[in-house]
């Protein structure tokens, strides 16, 4: 009996662990290192209608306990993703979640329409939270109305369930989450990166050519957990959690906060075997903590509070 399988809209996951978008390319590199079939799913790199080179380099900078990136959505473009990258991934029995990006509503709609038809794409991840592009991206992610409208339009054309990826750079994450739920989102993925910066001591200038970049890694974990905790209590759609996950223990913490599955980003760069390692370790950790199935952990932090409030009433 599997203790890790999870059913989410569009996704029958053998386990709830997947690489996060932009941290795993289109899978080829990591396939040299291990069998991708062990993964619960794969979130592929953001796809835009046209090929994009992205930002000038340097594109990464290190911060205490984390990193900044300003890749700028570099990708080979919709056509090539659909004709080359996705077909290559078909050799694996792993559902693909396609990360959809763009500068205008039309961009998102176009990518969603086409990419959602690919046989191995089981869900879309609507990236309204990329901090590293000048137009679109995060603008959609900080305005509830815009986020809702975009979600609606994408839902209208998508052949698979749509997850919306939320930005943490907002005053009120719950209002954005509710707006996209209203717009018809089937699920949420959170969080994308926090906007940050580093400056070079010698020159006084930003280390990143793009000046600012997205903060990821262990440092963002407490922010991600807090947001998932807040949002999961207010929406009725599932959350795929991410932000600084490094270990099986971290996965459980995200489930406690309210996640139903998780993605691992930055840690793939540090330990390329982190996903299979976590998947291996989860069953034993569940045993240790006294759970039969990982789904028992979802929302345990607030579900217990509810129960507690109930008992007192």
């Amino acid at each position, binding site marked *: 009996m599997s203790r890790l399988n999870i059913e989410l809209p569009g996704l029958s996951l053998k386990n709830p662990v997947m690489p996060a978008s*932009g*941290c*795993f*390319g289109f899978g*080829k*590199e*990591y396939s*040299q*290192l291990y069998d991708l079939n062990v993964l619960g799913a794969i979130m592929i*790199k953001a796809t835009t209608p046209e*090929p*994009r*080179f*992205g930002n000038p*380099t*340097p*594109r*990464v*900078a*290190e911060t*205490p*306990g*984390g*990193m900044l*990136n300003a*890749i700028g959505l*570099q990708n*080979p*473009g919709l056509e090539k993703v659909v004709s080359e990258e996705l077909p290559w991934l078909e050799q694996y029995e792993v559902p693909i979640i396609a990360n959809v990006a763009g500068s205008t509503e039309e961009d998102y709609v176009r990518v969603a329409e086409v990419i959602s038809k690919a046989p191995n794409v089981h869900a879309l991840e609507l990236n309204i939270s990329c901090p590293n592009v000048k137009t679109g991206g995060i603008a959609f992610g900080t305005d509830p109305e815009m986020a809702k409208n975009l979600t609606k339009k994408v839902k209208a054309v998508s052949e698979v369930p749509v997850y919306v990826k939320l930005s943490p750079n907002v005053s009120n994450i719950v209002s954005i989450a509710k707006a996209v739920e209203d717009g018809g989102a089937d699920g949420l993925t959170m969080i994308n990166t926090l906007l940050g910066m580093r400056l070079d001591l010698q020159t006084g200038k930003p280390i990143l050519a793009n000046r600012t970049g997205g903060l990821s*890694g*262990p440092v963002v974990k407490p922010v991600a957990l807090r947001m998932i905790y807040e949002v999961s209590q207010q929406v009725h759609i599932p959350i795929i959690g991410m932000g600084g996950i490094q270990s099986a223990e971290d996965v459980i913490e995200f489930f406690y906060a309210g996640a139903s599955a998780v993605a691992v980003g*930055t840690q*793939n*760069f*540090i*330990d*390329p*075997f982190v996903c299979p390692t976590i998947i291996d370790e989860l069953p034993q950790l569940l045993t240790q903590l006294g759970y039969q199935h990982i789904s028992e952990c979802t929302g345990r932090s607030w579900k217990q509070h509810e129960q507690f409030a109930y008992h007192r009433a």
Partner: protein
Amino acid sequence: MIINDQCTVVSQQQIAESIFELVLSGKIVEEMNEPGRFVHIKVTEGLDPMLRRPISIAAINKRSNEFTIIYRKQGRGTSLLANKKSGETVDILGPLGNGFSVAEANIGETAVLVGGGIGVPPLYELAKQLVAKGVKVISILGFQSQSAVFYEEKFASLGETYVTTVDGTYGKKGFVTDILGGLVVQPDVIYSCGPTPMLKAIEKGQYAAKVFLSLEERMGCGIGACFACVCHTKDDPTGHTYKKVCTDGPVFEAGEVAI
């Protein structure tokens, strides 16, 4: 094959000002052949610092199952690395990237190796392999100052070797290109690694028909997945075609990418 190996420190010593030579052993050596490739090092467990550091392979010793890296102690990562003592382990991912192709130089031909500062190390394994093949090697090594000079004798034992220093405290005062421009023999192949201005000058000078340059770029994954280390191709300098320094490089032929 790329593997993640916990290598053992065989020895560590300072060989010039801020320059350390670290010899490691581990089964990763079985995977090492081509010179000019690099390893991605997690200098300490935990998150301080978090990212791996790319460092070139300077020498491979298949018999003793050892390899050497030479690095400059500068920031937190290399400072922690410099503290490693014999017997301790170091977390190595590699070997990574495309290195210098020994096949480009034919037996009896002349290869000129041009290194600047911490660009010198990968040229050492290259020199050894070229000489073993029967290629004539001339090495031109540029440093800031006398105190920064290292490995001169090692290169000298493999062929004609020139050293330049910027401040003139050792060898010839000036830049490697001063020597390169004045060489009597015409090089068949040039292999170079060093600071970007140096690489640019070498590319521009067209000192040989075949020129190979090893680039540096800030890296995330080191294996081609994160798109941190891309550069434009020379024939499409503002378009969307690109090369990744970590997998397509770090060694490129002159004219391949925009540097």
